[in-house]
Structure formats: structure tokens, C-alpha cells
């Protein structure tokens, strides 16, 4: 693992912790939904960087599944908020 890849993983870890803080912070449901969408895509990026580090493409389908499911979850939460209020 070269230093630049290690720095990328460190930055992604930092980003996921900070966005988790956004999810838990006092705010509306929309804030939490977008924080979770961001968190999930950050984790998917971490999987891609890990695939580059180890050279194994075993977990790449996870990235596709995560991208699809995150979008569905975001839209479901938004429809719920529209109907019931935050």
C-alpha cells in the first residue's frame, strides 16, 4: 500500500466519521437522510480503494448494490417526509 493510497483511505475514514456526526446532530430528517446517503457512498468508495490495494475484485458487486439501494432509501425517506412532515 503506497502512501497515497493510505492517505486516501484515511481521508475516506475521516469523511465517514464526520458525516456520521452530521446524521446524529440535531436537525431534520432530511439532514439525516442526506448524511446517510453520503456515508453509504463514502463506504462504497472505501471498498473500491481497498480493491485497488489488494487487487481482488471480490467486493465490487457490493458497490453496485449499495449505489442502487442508497438511492431507493433516500427517495423513500423523502416521500415519507413529504407526507408526514419532518
Amino acid at each position: 500500500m503506497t502512501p497515497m493510497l493510505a492517505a486516501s483511505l484515511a481521508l475516506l475514514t475521516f469523511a465517514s466519521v464526520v458525516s456520521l456526526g452530521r446524521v446524529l446532530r440535531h436537525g431534520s430528517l432530511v439532514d439525516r437522510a442526506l448524511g446517510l446517503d453520503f456515508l453509504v457512498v463514502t463506504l462504497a468508495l472505501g471498498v473500491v480503494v481497498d480493491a485497488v490495494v489488494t487487487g481482488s475484485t471480490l467486493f465490487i458487486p457490493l458497490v453496485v448494490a449499495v449505489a442502487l439501494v442508497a438511492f431507493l432509501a433516500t427517495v423513500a425517506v423523502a416521500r415519507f417526509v413529504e407526507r408526514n412532515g419532518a
Partner: protein
Amino acid sequence: MIRVTAEVAILAGSLLVAVASIGLHRFDDVFARLHAAGKATSLAFLLVSIGAFAHGLPARAAGELVLASVVLLVTTPVGVHVLADAAYRCGDQLSSSTTIDELADRSAPSADLDE
């Protein structure tokens, strides 16, 4: 040489995501936070995917990563739009530095959501 460029691309994508996560905290408006979350994730995913291919990820992963990139590029604006619509309808206030509200004369949420 190509490996170094690939790693720079991956690092750039990660840096973009890290800066956007700070922006999620610092913006004072839910709509600005939607900007940070939506724009950064799709661009960062593109950068990291290109860096991964240039670095030498096996070609088996090519189709799946391209699919994931296209899916993210298409669905992220839709998700951001739906969230912004829901936030506006529920009365999330725009920040005090906003000067134009184009939806100010919009009526209350209509009752035909369930049809």
C-alpha cells in the same frame, strides 16, 4: 508513471469527499448541504473509478464499476431533488444569506400525492 497518476486521481476523489463532509457541517442551510452531498459523491466516484482502472484493477470489475458510476450519476440528482422538495414543503427555512426564493408563491402540499 501511470500508477502515480492513478493514485493522484484516487487521492483527489478522497479529498473531495473529505472536504464535502466538512461542508455538511459548516453550511447553515439544508439546501446547501444537499449541494455538498450530491455533487461531491458522483464526481468523487468517477475520479476514484478512473484511478482504479488506471492503477490496474482487473477488467472483470470494469463493467460493474461503470454501471455503478452511471447509476450514481443518474440517481443522485433525482434523490437530491426529491429531498429538496420534501424539505421545502416541510418548511425548512432558507438561510438568511439567500436573496431569491423562486418557490415563494407555492401553495401547501397538494392532496393528490397518493393518487
